[in-house]
């Protein structure tokens, strides 16, 4: 009962703050801008992307459709969503310390573990809302503006999916993307527990993501040993849902690694926050 009350209150606090809506507005504006730009000049982009292929293949039908636009948007935005997650989640504990409101809340009967868990659940729900908004806006608006059709995906091979074989791939890709954003949320939440101001966790989260992304992508032998342990190695695995033969074993392993990151980071957060002296 207490847990439900505190979680509802944490959600209320998140959605009472103007900064929460900056993230939604950012997603809305970026997606509208991309879709408008493609609407105006998209055929050139598609021609450019497929110019080498046109020598060997004959393309017909509506290739510049809502699904193709959504796939482009997903590729473009997955690096930006973590910033929007960190913007709100990084403030959840550090913001209370900064404002001095912990002096009220933590002198009430609630335990620190309950409060911390409620805040984290609220953070996950907020992250989910971002991903759902991203999905709805990119897919629904894309299909509305550009119509539907087959999806061309250029990975190691050219994958062409028929219209009735696409939606479930997007749903699973968004679900996996949410798992990735939960790791970002857990990291940001952990840094938020360490700090008494909100800027530190936001910058810290982005710095760690950028550093880990470099370590994951640079083909240098020294990084080969750490690469399997970095969440950034697995965070783009959502693209595997757009393979002909989906490697579920690889996706399951990646999901488990991401899940392990969430559990470990959240456990550290609980441990640290539970013994932290509130001096603010």
């Amino acid at each position, binding site marked *: 009962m*207490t847990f439900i*009350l*505190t979680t*509802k*209150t*944490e959600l*209320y*606090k998140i959605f*009472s*703050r*103007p900064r929460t809506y900056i993230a939604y507005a950012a997603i809305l504006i970026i997606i509208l801008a991309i879709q408008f730009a493609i609407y105006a000049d998209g055929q050139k982009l598609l021609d450019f992307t497929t110019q080498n292929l046109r020598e060997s293949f004959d393309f017909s039908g509506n290739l510049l459709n809502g699904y193709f636009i959504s796939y482009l948007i997903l590729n473009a935005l997955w690096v930006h969503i973590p910033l929007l997650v960190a913007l709100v989640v990084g403030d959840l504990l550090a913001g209370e310390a900064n*404002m*001095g*409101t*912990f*002096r*009220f*809340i*933590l*002198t*009430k*009967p*609630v*335990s620190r573990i*309950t*409060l911390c868990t409620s805040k984290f659940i609220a953070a996950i729900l907020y992250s989910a809302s971002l991903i759902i908004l991203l999905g709805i806006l990119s897919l629904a608006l894309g299909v509305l503006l550009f119509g539907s059709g087959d999806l061309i995906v250029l990975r190691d091979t050219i994958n062409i999916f028929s219209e009735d074989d696409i939606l479930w791939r997007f749903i699973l890709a968004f679900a996996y993307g949410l798992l990735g954003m939960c790791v970002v949320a857990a990291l940001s939440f952990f840094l938020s527990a360490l700090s008494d101001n909100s800027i530190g966790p936001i910058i810290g989260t982005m710095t760690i993501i950028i550093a880990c992304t470099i370590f994951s992508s640079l083909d240098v032998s020294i990084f080969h040993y750490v690469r399997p342990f970095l969440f950034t190695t697995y965070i783009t695995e959502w693209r595997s849902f757009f393979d002909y033969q989906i490697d579920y074993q690889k996706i399951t392993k990646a999901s488990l690694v991401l899940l392990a990151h969430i559990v470990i980071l959240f456990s550290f957060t609980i441990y640290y926050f539970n*013994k932290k*002296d*509130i*001096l603010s």
Partner: protein
Amino acid sequence: MGDQQIIEVSKLYKTFGRTTVVNNLSFHVMQGDIYGFLGPNGAGKSTTLRMLVSLIKPDSGDISIIGKDLHKNRPEIMRSCGILIERPDFYKYLNAIDNLKVISNSGGVCVSRRRIHEVIEMVGLTGHEHKKVKTYSQGMKQRLGLAQALLHNPALLLLDEPSNGLDPQGIREMRELIISLNKVHGKTILLSSHLLYEIELMANRMLIINKGASVVEGDVFELLNQGIYRVNFNVSDVIKAKELLSRITNEPITTDQATQTITATLSNHQIPVANQLLVEHQIDVHAIKPLRALEEYFLSLT
């Protein structure tokens, strides 16, 4: 006052790095007390209060509240306590009602809207409850801070410098409210302050701490009115006055030629005797200013 110990603190220690902030502190608060917790800035008052409400973990020592060990029974104890630690800070983007609701719900306490309006009225914020807290003055925030402490109708209040930031009228109103909470509503109150006169006006018992350690504890009236005073005489002839006063007291006498002031430690009944003696020896006495010994000691700390 009651004979039940509401707060019992024993051998409390807390260090930050190499600095000992609270040093072997022990005291107890009885049911029905307004217990003054007095000390200069930096004496360790807020750290002690933060340990009493589990915001800070002590290095060692025992804290028992309403007869229960704080470490083992924190949720139950917190249900009986209303707490205001240092300056009150709120969610600036919410109004007073939403702040009270959010703070209590975040802390796992569900309160009715009616109770929120009751406490808002009790602290004199009626008419301002729908304004966002970012528009509030420091005094209004202080009142709202007290309102959140009263929300769940606790039997024990721990108030850290509740008059901070208030104007003289606000200080008086806060004082009257605290006394009324004790006398009318029967609440036990632990009141921290760095102002002796504030404690004197409200508390029945008090503890003075300095550098984290207990200096003196006891009944406020008895401690402050032991009948021993440091008395400043503003006189026309300081040297002659010193010689005369040394006939009636063995305590050290200090003089200040620049201000024509002589200071002696005298008992209550020695003050008129000293005055008569000076006048009889043709020394003009321009002013007599008695300062209670404990008051003077406390002022020397601050």
